[in-house]
């Protein structure tokens, strides 16, 4: 049994969620290889080779792989599939884009967003926005899997010394082209791996009011998130969205401000260790999952909270 894990990387840096995907793979057992696909990926390959437990890093360096276009990446992964029992990726927008394309090329059914591993063929995954957990087993020759990063403790980024091996076979399928990105830049921690997340909802009333949450985030070293309602209303960009179809977070502390708590939002945050809800409606469903609920007008409570934190 051996496992190939697709390495997530951005701007020449290995994404931390790769460490969670490796953690999931390590529970399956067998030799673990990482695939670094991109252009000029030397730094990422070095970082990948240092991850504890990795036996080999395959590096596909080609212009056609620079932006992770699924039309180019999936056939490359298919060409590497021969020696693997499992092919895995974190359930990021990159993993979600390419892995089903790979699965169909291999004529296997993918298992999406796993949160628990029973054995090499049996996996648990959330369905219905996490309101039910489905355990499925697969007899496919190759298990193509995406992993929910927050469900697996990250492995150590250091301690490994894997061999780095170039792989050929990349080519441009000529179907798609990358044009540009509009990425949110922030000095704050990344939403899905931040130890504390403070999120705002429709109750924030205006994008400018998120500055109140940002001040608290800066005091706590927290990331700022949002509900779908806040993103739809244009208060904050799409990459803030926490929920069933946005990002899934599980920080030590999640503070929900002016968020009613639709099941689609709860799906993205209810595995947080401690949940705080601040909402003026004491019937809001968010209070059903909150460890500490404060029924208050957020425009009074949030400035008071900032002051109290000193």
């Amino acid at each position, binding site marked *: 049994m051996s496992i190939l894990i697709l390495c997530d990387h951005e701007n020449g840096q290995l994404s931390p969620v790769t460490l969670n995907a490796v953690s999931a793979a390590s529970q399956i057992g067998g030799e673990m290889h990482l695939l670094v696909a991109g252009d000029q990926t030397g730094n990422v390959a070095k970082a990948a080779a240092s991850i504890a437990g990795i036996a080999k890093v395959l590096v596909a360096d080609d212009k056609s792989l620079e932006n992770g276009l699924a039309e180019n990446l999936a056939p490359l992964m298919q060409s590497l599939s021969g020696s693997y029992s499992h092919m895995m990726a974190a359930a990021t927008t990159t993993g979600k*884009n390419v892995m089903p394309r790979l699965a169909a090329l291999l004529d*296997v059914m993918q298992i999406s967003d796993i949160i628990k591993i029973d054995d090499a063929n049996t996996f648990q995954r959330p369905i219905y926005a996490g309101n*039910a957990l489905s355990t499925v087993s697969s007899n496919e020759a190759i298990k193509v899997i995406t992993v929910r990063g927050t469900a697996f403790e990250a492995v150590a980024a250091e301690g490994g010394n894997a061999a780095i091996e170039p792989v050929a076979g990349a080519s441009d399928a000529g179907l798609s082209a990358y044009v540009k990105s509009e990425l949110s830049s922030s000095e704050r921690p990344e939403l899905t791996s931040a130890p504390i997340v403070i999120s705002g909802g429709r109750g924030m009333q205006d994008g400018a009011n998120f500055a109140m949450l940002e001040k608290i985030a800066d005091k706590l070293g927290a990331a700022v998130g949002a509900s779908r309602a806040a993103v739809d209303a244009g208060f904050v960009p799409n990459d803030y969205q926490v929920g069933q179809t946005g990002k899934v977070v599980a920080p030590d502390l999640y503070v929900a401000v002016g968020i009613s708590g639709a099941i689609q939002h709860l799906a993205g945050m209810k595995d947080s260790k401690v949940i705080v809800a601040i909402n003026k409606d004491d019937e809001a469903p968010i209070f059903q999952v909150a*460890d500490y*609920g404060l029924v208050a007008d957020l425009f009074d409570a949030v400035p008071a909270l900032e002051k109290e934190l000193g």
Partner: protein
Amino acid sequence: MKVLVPVKRVIDYNVKVRVKADQSGVELANVKMAMNPFDEIAVEQALRLREAGTAEEVIAVSIGPAQNQETIRTALAMGADRGIHIEAPHDIEPLAVAKLLKAVVAQENPGIVLVGKQAIDDDCNQTGQMLAALLGWAQGTFASALEIAGDKAKVIREVDGGLEHIEINMPAIVTVDLRLNEPRYASLPNIMKAKKKPLDSLTAGDLGVDIAPRLTIVKVEEPTARAAGIKVGDVQELVSKLKNEAKVI
């Protein structure tokens, strides 16, 4: 150009699902069903392409039991021109769905397939990408904007870091995200008109596709409920609890 829009019948997004006592799945009997909300956005986008003169015909296809014809009628009431129903079990897997859709594409030759990025029941997020692979077409996934010009489409994708702009060759698969548009409601006259629109029925056998499941469902369980929390009186008490009791700040 024809636009093909696959629409899935799922438990309505407002319904709190219940797991069956025998752990074989979730309760579907006597539960309100509706079109997958992402597929509604796909239907809306297809209609806008037709209204803009980019497309001539919008075809809604649904795969599942006889009741899926209601979901097709919903798409027809929104404005789709005709429907195709493929008889299959309710819980058919995305790979089999993609193979059936490939066969429909071969019959209909659409210029684009618009589909929801994921279904809110199984949360798989696979079908569009799989169909693109089987057809050898480009895929524009998680689209929040779509612009078609000749044999290319410009797609803005919602990705983890923000937005990504790509250009893809047509024909293509575009999987739609929440912010692409706001779907219209079907008016009563359009609901009446939809009853007369053509709706063909096929089986997987007619299309020569093997739809046998590849995965076995071992069990479906309720997640562990969170222990009940407490209400705090004010911000001072909240901060004190977070520092001294939960010890998270």
